[in-house]
């Protein structure tokens, strides 16, 4: 097979090698996500005993849906505007304080939410919450 070097001009190869810089903001956004991942990792304990990560995830997902729905019902569908993920977590833990199932330290989870600055999902009145 002929050497492919001869098939592409030096000019084109130089263009292909041309650096692409998405800017310092793009690099900062990477670190923002890495910090959030690190905080999440610190917050979610490793599988202990019979509690596996997948089970834990399913429990959390279910409890979030419940807390979002109950929060929405209490506020008549309007009170979730501007609510942060940290607020939703707080509502969830407050509602579940009588039960045994919150297995994650509330403070750590709220700290994660503060790092990510996520707004809580706002369920559409009458429509089931969906996640893709």
């Amino acid at each position: 097979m002929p050497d492919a070097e001869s098939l592409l001009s030096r000019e084109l190869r130089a263009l292909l090698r041309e650096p692409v810089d998405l800017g310092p903001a793009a690099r900062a956004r990477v670190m923002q996500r890495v910090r959030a991942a690190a905080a999440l990792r610190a917050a979610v304990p490793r599988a202990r005993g019979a509690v596996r990560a997948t089970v834990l995830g399913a429990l959390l997902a279910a409890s979030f849906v419940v807390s979002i729905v109950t929060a929405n019902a209490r506020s008549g569908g309007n009170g979730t505007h501007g609510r942060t993920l940290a607020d939703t977590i707080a509502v969830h833990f407050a509602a579940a304080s009588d039960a045994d199932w919150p297995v994650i330290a509330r403070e750590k989870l709220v700290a994660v939410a503060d790092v990510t600055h996520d707004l809580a999902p706002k369920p559409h009145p009458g429509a089931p919450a969906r996640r893709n």
Partner: protein
Amino acid sequence: MQESDAAVVRRVRAGDVEAFALLVDRHHARLARYALRMMGDRGEAEELVQDAFVRAYGALARYKEREQFGAWILRILVNRCRSSLAREARRLAAAAAWIHETAATFDPAEPITQRDELSAALGRLPADLREAVLLRYADELGYEEISAITGAGISALKMRVKRACERLRAMLEPTRAGR
């Protein structure tokens, strides 16, 4: 002397999350170049590069120091780009339609740079040829390294690079000869 990537990885593994920024600074531009040329969209490229770094951070425990960090994270990005392309076949169809539309509404008064031509030509290459030619000529990797990253055999890769070069030449040289 600059701290090696392996040494930085050791610091991150020991709990110094902020040290990961050094790896981001060192490798971001190279990964961005690959993602941008592969996907053709700046926003998507940035998203995929972010994903690659976050996945690399999450998988640092599995990183073996005998491998270059740069090659390891490039492999993560290559796989992310492949998944994204496979998942978004409709997006590719839309991109192809856009390329035809752009060609049809081409305004000769608007200067087209060689860089634009190259981007459009790369976008018309099948993904496997584009991947091979970018790793060979943009990242200047040897065939053995490309093979380790893509999982393809060396002779298949040489063939892909050859075909990609032939197609790029066929697409780019007539337009330049016509000026």
